[in-house]
């Protein structure tokens, strides 16, 4: 056990800190909904794209994406990724992105050379943004039962059906989408993975307003949408396998311990500065004990993250410590937002540009968004199934009968 960083990593961290000090002012705002926001068409790159380009040049974004596809081309190094995430979080600077952390790794792993050249460089430059067309009204946790169809007609697939929970569809340039191409095959084997422009005729996006009051999600309807046959990633009928590559990449991003630690610091600051009856909230022993309980959980998750990182560096499968991150991390974030709201009392309920509102209503927004994240990306219950079955080896629920879709 040695928590010191060797000279190589210490230097890497020092250089990054220096970079952030020097260039922080160019960062386009610390809090951004997603890197996939579609900006108004304009001449030349926008500030977000220029920031991203600067980060790529210094190896702080798209770090391991090969140079020929516009990345920095470094060898994978989990510890350097960790240092990057940690320092950007500490400095509260908008981090870079790798185009789309679900689509880009999938194309790099399973796409053809033409597809890689077509999709990866503009994605990582922030010029091609993505939305994910997976869930359907009738296919949530049981995703493989999806029914949106793509039938071959000449050189095209013709898509009909509906997707839901499509984050950012109103801004995205492109969609990666699961469709059923082999209706007679067993449900996991009849799916294909297509990529196409959101400008194609026959696509209708309807915003879905969530409990936060914002339309972060959409419903997307397809009516005879034509997509060239070569816009399939992987082979026909292998889309489920392709999608699982993507899902693996998505889950790793949820429940990040860096985020929890930052959030914890914000709550401490809030409790030390906000006063009730003339006294800081921190002086209330009951609130404080609740804060300390969360600190204990937060630290446990932080050190758990260090353990996972150590395994990854040694090319070992982290197992259980990794399986639990999404479940525990999202719950912890939600609990922390709840704690902040309760510290504020009535002030904590103010929302929508109300007078006296604290932190722009951020805690209420997070409290609700976090509940969304507990449900999304594989519900907490699905996570528990995976922990029970894959990590603890408990048997699956017996299938009632396999219904072909």
């Amino acid at each position, binding site marked *: *056990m040695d928590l*010191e960083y060797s000279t190589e990593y210490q230097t890497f961290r020092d250089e990054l800190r220096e970079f952030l000090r020097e260039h922080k002012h160019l960062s386009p705002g610390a809090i951004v909904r997603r890197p996939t926001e579609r900006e108004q068409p304009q001449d030349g790159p926008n500030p977000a794209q220029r920031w991203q380009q600067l980060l790529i040049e210094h190896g702080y974004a798209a770090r391991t994406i090969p140079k020929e596809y516009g990345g920095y081309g470094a060898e994978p190094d989990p510890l350097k990724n960790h240092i990057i995430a940690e320092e950007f979080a500490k400095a509260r600077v908008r981090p870079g992105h790798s185009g789309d952390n679900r689509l880009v790794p999938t194309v790099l792993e399973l796409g053809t050379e033409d597809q890689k050249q077509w999709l990866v460089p503009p994605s990582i430059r922030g010029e091609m943004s993505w939305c994910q067309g997976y869930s359907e009204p009738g296919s949530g946790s049981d995703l493989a039962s999806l029914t949106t169809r793509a039938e071959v007609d000449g050189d095209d697939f013709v898509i009909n059906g509906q997707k839901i929970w499509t984050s950012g569809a109103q801004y995205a340039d492109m969609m990666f989408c699961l469709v059923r191409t082999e209706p007679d095959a067993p449900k996991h084997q009849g799916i294909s993975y297509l990529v196409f422009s959101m400008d194609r005729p026959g696509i209708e996006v309807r915003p879905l307003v969530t409990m936060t009051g914002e339309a972060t999600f959409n419903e997307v309807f397809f009516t005879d949408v034509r997509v060239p046959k070569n816009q399939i990633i992987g082979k026909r009928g292998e889309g489920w396998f392709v999608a699982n590559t993507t899902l693996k990449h998505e889950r790793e991003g949820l429940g990040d311990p860096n985020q929890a630690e930052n959030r914890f610091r914000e709550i401490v600051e809030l409790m030390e500065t906000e006063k009730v009856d003339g006294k800081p909230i921190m002086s209330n022993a009951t609130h404080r004990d609740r804060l300390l309980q969360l*600190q204990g959980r937060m630290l446990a998750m932080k*050190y758990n993250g260090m353990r996972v990182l150590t395994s990854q560096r040694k090319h070992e499968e982290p197992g259980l410590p990794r399986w639990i991150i999404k479940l525990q991390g999202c719950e912890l974030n939600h609990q922390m937002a709840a704690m902040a709201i309760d510290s504020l009392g009535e002030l904590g309920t103010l929302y929508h540009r109300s007078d006296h509102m604290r932190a722009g209503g951020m805690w209420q927004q997070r409290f609700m968004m976090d509940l969304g994240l507990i449900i999304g990306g594989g519900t907490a219950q699905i996570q528990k199934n995976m922990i029970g079955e894959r*990590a603890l080896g408990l*048997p699956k629920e017996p299938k009632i009968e396999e219904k072909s879709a």
Partner: protein
Amino acid sequence: MDFALSEEQQYLQQTVMDLLADSCSLDVVRADASENQTKNSDLFASLAQLGIQGTLISEDYGGVGLRLIDAALIAEALGSCVATVPFIGNSVIAPLAIDLAGSDEQKNNWLPRLASGEITCGIALGEHVGARDNDPITREKDTISGVAMFALEVQDADIFLVATNEGELHIVESQNVHVNPLFSIDKTRSIGELTLEGTPSDHLAHCTDPSDVLARVVDAGRVAIAADTLGASQTMLNKAVEYAGERQQFNRVIGSFQAVKHMCAEMAAELEPCRSLVWYAAHAYDTIAQEARLTACHAKAHLAEVGRFVARKATEVHGGMGFTDLLGLHYWFKRVELNRQLLGTPEFVRNIAAEVQGWT
């Protein structure tokens, strides 16, 4: 950056686990419990052969000179088998106190005998951690007097480490102490009430700030208790998963029902990060002084909470059988419950964590 156990550490823990698998089965624990025996002399002797009692004692005094992280791995192993031997007081707190506050002569006198297992030491730190309404322990010249509540590992102890109301540390010999055993729910460790009346004491005064030494050894003790709870909880989870994978109802193993599967997943999800917390707290005690107290308190408090959760859920997974004496699960349940209260309840130690951060 390497946050993992070394091969030597894994080997150490496995060696102790193997020994316990042979000599500390549930039958042994049951037999000891029925006789209120909390120092199984065979097991204690086998552990001494491995040098376990000398884990934290330097080689100069006949020990093996390891660190708290190693002692925590041993405590975890002992907790996993609800072992009926003293360790946390005898082999963690007492040797550290003597090492930090004793003169060379005192170290020479006590440490080699503790390291070899020739003598055992109980601890009575109640004056420092949650003093009760009893006669305070006071010193007068070379003697100490008073009543020490909730001394730990008292059975068959040859000597006791006692804290006074001034925060001094003393060693007294058990023949000069009246020990009134107290019977807690946990039959695998002994606690008791010590009465001292002008008892001659060996004052450990070779340090600049005795109360700092006291606080530090309590940090170490809290980490060791957290590790013991980690081990006990992990065993309960393992037993629950095993039972859920075997027991059949409605023509299915009950672990295939999500109601049961999710209880197991929740236990694992809560417990697994605790392992990292215990490692980190032990490592901080050894090498990151400024984080030692904070993380020791959090390890103690958080393990107490998660330990109680796991002990309860694991019992429920076993259904009615979990509630009976037949399966013996209750030994682990009770071990976790006593650990929760020793050296400060979760609320008590979280308050210390708040003080450390300047929040009170």
